[in-house]
């Protein structure tokens, strides 16, 4: 109907069209990332060279060397790793138990509590910031790891509980009942039976939690003060004010700061996507 062209040719043409559009889309999505990587290998004088190019004569990894040998900057990374890992562990521990409770028990106010857990996700961080500031100072936690770990859990925890409840709901109750008939407690049923078979769900929650913590900015900016307590996202900002724009170093640090999430993403793509779509798509 549409043309005199043989079917195979018109199919071929539409395929070429689709690939062209795909490439334009890929440039939109990927070019900034490519530019970040490219700039991290330039010398600072060539960042704004005219005309710009992806690979310059000064191509070198010296910006990376500078970042990785500067104890202040390495400390940003250590802080981020420590805080994110601990947030992930605590969130999983508390979230698994919360999810188990919602999935396996009927109790008074269950519906209301469930609504609160979901609703917490809608609370804007900026609303919590001012009271958190007072509370953290009051608890003498200002400028410490626990200040960040505790406050990050407000976002990671409700996510973990919702996801774990959903995951446990897919597992038959006969599993825990078998343990209880053998004389085991619900505690044994949870940690010895349900947790091992829920590993895919737990990994997905863990990875997502780690990422949320790794990316957090507002609380880290406000609840820490000294350079040695700063995390990567805030540390990068400090770099910006401090020097007269060492763009290549900032880009190198951006690449290094994105690597953990990027690597986690590439390994656990399936889990990530499950986590991303959980809020909007019904299985």
């Amino acid at each position, binding site marked *: 109907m549409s043309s005199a062209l043989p079917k195979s040719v018109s*199919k071929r043409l539409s*395929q070429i069209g689709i690939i062209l*559009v795909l490439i334009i*889309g*890929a440039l*939109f*999505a990927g070019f*900034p*990332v490519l*530019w*970040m990587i490219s700039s991290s290998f330039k010398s600072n004088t060539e*960042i704004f060279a*005219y005309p*710009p190019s992806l690979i310059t004569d000064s191509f070198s990894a010296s910006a990376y060397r500078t970042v990785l040998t500067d104890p202040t900057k390495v400390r940003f990374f250590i802080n981020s790793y420590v805080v994110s890992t601990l947030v992930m562990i605590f969130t999983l521990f*508390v979230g698994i*138990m*919360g999810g*188990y*409770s919602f999935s*396996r*028990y*009927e*109790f008074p106010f269950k519906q209301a*509590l469930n*609504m609160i857990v*979901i*609703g*917490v996700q*809608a*609370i*804007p961080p*900026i*609303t*919590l910031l*001012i*009271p958190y500031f*007072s*509370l953290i100072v009051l608890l003498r936690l200002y400028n410490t790891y626990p200040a960040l770990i*505790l406050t990050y859990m*407000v976002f990671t925890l409700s996510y973990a*509980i919702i996801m774990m409840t959903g995951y446990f709901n897919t597992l038959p109750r006969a599993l825990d009942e078998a343990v209880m008939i053998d004389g085991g407690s*619900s505690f044994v049923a949870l940690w010895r039976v349900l947790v091992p078979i829920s590993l895919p769900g737990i990994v997905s929650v863990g990875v997502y939690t780690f990422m949320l913590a790794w*990316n957090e*900015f507002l609380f880290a900016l406000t609840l820490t003060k000294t350079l040695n307590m700063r995390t990567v*996202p805030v540390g*990068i*900002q400090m770099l*910006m004010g401090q020097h007269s724009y060492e763009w290549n170093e*900032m880009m190198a640090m*951006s690449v290094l*700061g*994105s690597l953990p999430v*990027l690597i986690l993403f590439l390994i656990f793509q399936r889990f990530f*996507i499950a986590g*991303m*779509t959980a*809020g*909007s*798509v*019904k299985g």
Partner: protein
Amino acid sequence: MTVTTRTSARARWYKTSKRLAPFAYLSPTLVLLTILSLIPIVMVFYYSLMDNVVMNPDPVFVGLKNYVEILTDDVFHTALFNTLYFTLMSVIFHLIIGLSFAMLLNTDAINPFTKALFRVIYILPWVFTASIIAILWRLMLNPNGVINYLLEWSGLISQKIEWLGSRQVALHAVTFINIWSGYPFYMVSLLAGLQGIPNDMYEAGTIDGANKQQLFRFITLPQLRPIIISLAMLDFIWTMQQFTLIWMTTGGGPIRATEVLSTLTYKMAFSSYEFSLASANAFVILALSLFVAYFYVRHQGATNE
């Protein structure tokens, strides 16, 4: 006799423990959520009714005075307008770009490997954190940066544009950055939704003589509707709260051109130490968020049944 009492005691203990068990498992959650959300919200509301707390050792109750002050302040109006512009444009373009990419990735015209490769590239912006995205775009949107070069080279502009430094374009520029960084969330969710549409629906439509546009309008869109509504509401809530991206690109400037509610609140609290005004502001943002969240929860509840 003793045996029966013992078993009944055991049974009773068993029953009680079973009744308490769910609360035992939830106790860490309840403690944390009380400290981290209930108490802070009560605190911020209390602060908002007082005359400058934190800085003033003897704050006095002033009722709604702070609310009247911010709601009649021009800066608040600017910030509210900017927030709504930033949020609405982001939601609309996230949806358009996310849906287009999802449909591209869902065609049968390309082989699975190419598809997987492009999918990873398209998700890339989502992997980067807001502060890194902000710095990257500051570099690219610098007057001497690569974006201006490419636009000049292609003849689209005749002189360099101060993307983040000019009052006329800064808001559009930060909105664009947010659009770039946020669409993958839509794309991934919509792709999952597209894959969930049964193929025979399209076959039936084709047999009935529907063309591609009609298939899209009468099958694809209605099937994706619940996902699109959820995504738009979630995105609306999150984008309205966006702080990092704006803070690190323009800091709300130049001269309030990109001031949004969250940056305004932050400045009130931590630059001018007006903690009570900031609290009133923060409470308004909370109310706006919960307003949208209420519809989101209701919508989710309706689609669950």
